[in-house]
């Protein structure tokens, strides 16, 4: 095996390992932000592997793919980060818990909202601050 072959095997093994570790973090979470960071790394790995294939095989037809990936890759991350930061801040006792992370959390939130609705009295319903205002409603 030539030095060229050894180096290439090492390069693609490292790319594969990096991608696999990113997938592991995306699956494990624990929060949606960790998953988005991991998916970002996975996409970067994809770009780097495409570039490596271009360099090794001496082809230039994949350049538009790289261009589009570089231009559009960040938007998914920004969109998810926006939706997280709009969410209410975490209560101190639930620190480290992500409101969007799991089905269990969503069910907890639903249950606590139902409890609050059940506890409402007619006087509560007449209060101004409970009326939807359109903003922050």
């Amino acid at each position, binding site marked *: 095996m030539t*030095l*060229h072959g050894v*180096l*290439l095997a*090492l*390069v*693609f*093994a*490292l*790319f594969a*390992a*990096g*991608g*696999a*570790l*990113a997938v*592991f*973090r995306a699956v494990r979470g624990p*929060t949606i*932000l*960790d998953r*988005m*960071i*991991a998916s*970002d*790394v996975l996409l*970067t*790995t994809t*770009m*780097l592997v495409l*570039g*490596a294939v*271009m*360099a*090794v095989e*001496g082809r*230039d037809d994949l*350049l538009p793919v*790289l*261009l589009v990936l*570089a*231009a*559009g*890759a*960040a*938007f998914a*991350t*920004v969109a998810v*980060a*926006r939706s*997280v*930061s709009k*969410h209410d*801040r*975490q209560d*101190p006792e639930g*620190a*480290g818990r*992500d*409101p969007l992370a799991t089905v269990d959390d969503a069910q907890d939130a639903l249950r606590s909202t139902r409890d609050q609705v059940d506890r409402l009295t007619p006087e509560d319903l007449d209060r101004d601050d409970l009326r939807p205002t359109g903003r922050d409603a």
Partner: protein
Amino acid sequence: MTIAADLLLLGAALLTFAAGLGLVRFRDALSRLHAGTKPQVLGLLLVLAAIAVGNGRWDLVPALIPVIGLQLVTVPVAAHMVARAAYRTGNYRDDLLTADELAPAIEAAGERESSGISDPS
């Protein structure tokens, strides 16, 4: 020439592996973000250099510059948004921070808000 391109690719592959390792080993979202953003700029730069060197063509360079340029514009935006969301949802560990310069600013903004001046954010 091919060995030079291979070495550039090896650098990028090492960065990618380091990012994956950092994603798995680090403890909170902010430090994972730190690990994950390394191959996005330097790794891509090395791979683009490897493309030019491996093909041995200068005429590819003008086509490669927009790729790294777009990446340099979009990646900091995404990282900034994720870090902001991580901070605001408390998804970081206080004991891993050496300095928190944002907390006093948020406190000041909160005081301004409660004193009746509307918060522009």
